[in-house]
């Protein structure tokens, strides 16, 4: 069965951002970024600097997807953590609740050990929130997200107007 749509409400975003912000401070990281496995940005904390968030999300999701493919190829369920070590900046990437990806960018002001420790704690909190969002999105129907959906009543004119 194909995965259902994901609906992120403002209150979800606020809850997730609190966890990400705390992780950024605890891990002394430059950037903490949460995205879904299809490369859509969910929330972030920290400074992106010159990094384009859309490209970062797409390439990270591609990276995780390719790694998942590798895991299956060798008979593993998943490789849950990816680590990329650069000259100045490093990326720690892990999956969250099978639907999301957490990326932490850090430099020499932190360490891999500290990041791993803090990520583990934050991931547990994020899993709870993401699972709630997924369950609500899948329930669809009567939920508040369904009542708010802007697309149930769009007209052909609305769509044509997009193209000027």
């Amino acid at each position, binding site marked *: 069965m194909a995965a259902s749509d994901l609906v992120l409400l403002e209150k979800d975003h606020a809850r997730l951002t609190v966890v990400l912000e705390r992780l950024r401070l605890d891990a002394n990281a430059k950037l903490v970024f949460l995205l879904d*496995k299809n490369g859509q940005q969910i*929330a972030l904390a920290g400074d992106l600097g010159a990094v384009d968030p859309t490209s970062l999300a797409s390439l990270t999701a591609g990276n995780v997807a390719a790694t998942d493919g590798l895991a299956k190829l060798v008979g593993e369920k998943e490789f849950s953590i990816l680590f990329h070590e650069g000259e100045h900046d490093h990326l720690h990437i892990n999956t969250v609740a099978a639907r999301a990806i957490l990326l932490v960018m850090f430099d020499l002001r932190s360490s891999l050990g500290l990041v791993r420790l803090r990520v583990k704690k934050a991931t547990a909190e994020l899993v709870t929130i993401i699972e709630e969002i997924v369950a609500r999105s899948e329930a669809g129907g009567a939920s508040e*997200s369904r009542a708010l959906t802007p*697309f149930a009543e769009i007209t052909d004119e609305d769509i044509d107007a997009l193209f000027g």
Partner: protein
Amino acid sequence: MTFINYAAREINCKIVYYGPGLGGKTTNIQYVYDRTGSATKGKLISLATESDRTLFFDFLPIEFGAIRGFRTRFHLYTVPGQVFYDASRKLILKGMDGVVFVADSQEVRMDANLESIRNLEENLKEHGYDLKRVPYVLQLNKRDLPTAVPVPEMIAALRVKNEPVFEAIATRGVGVFDTLKSIVKGVLLDLRSR
């Protein structure tokens, strides 16, 4: 799998350009990139080999206007067309909201077109999708080549349902935006019907 973000008031959809190798999928996306204003497009990412063959995917985020106060953002992906990159193709189809099939009109590529459509159908099935039910557009590319198969013949061979069909010469941009608009419309109509 559409992502509706109420916090950012935007909707994100994923469109995948599928088709046989060297059929013009990347050329489509490149043309869209070249002809779109910088305010409405993101960076074009191309994971290609040294000889410009797509290795993993090309990616272009593009934004159309707003609907009911929600910005509509479409992520355009291409798959590697070469037969042996099937594992990568499967990964990229995951979470898609619509597919454009870019067929190569040259007579010698008809078998490759047919094989690629079969491959698309199978890979979609693995993700739980049915090609007959997903938003889908057929583009007949390279119409300017002397060996191009007549349009009615191509439609008879390649059309899988009542999908919109567009003739294109992607290198010159002919049919590129018509194809894109058609799939965007299909995706939005599909969202409405859910």
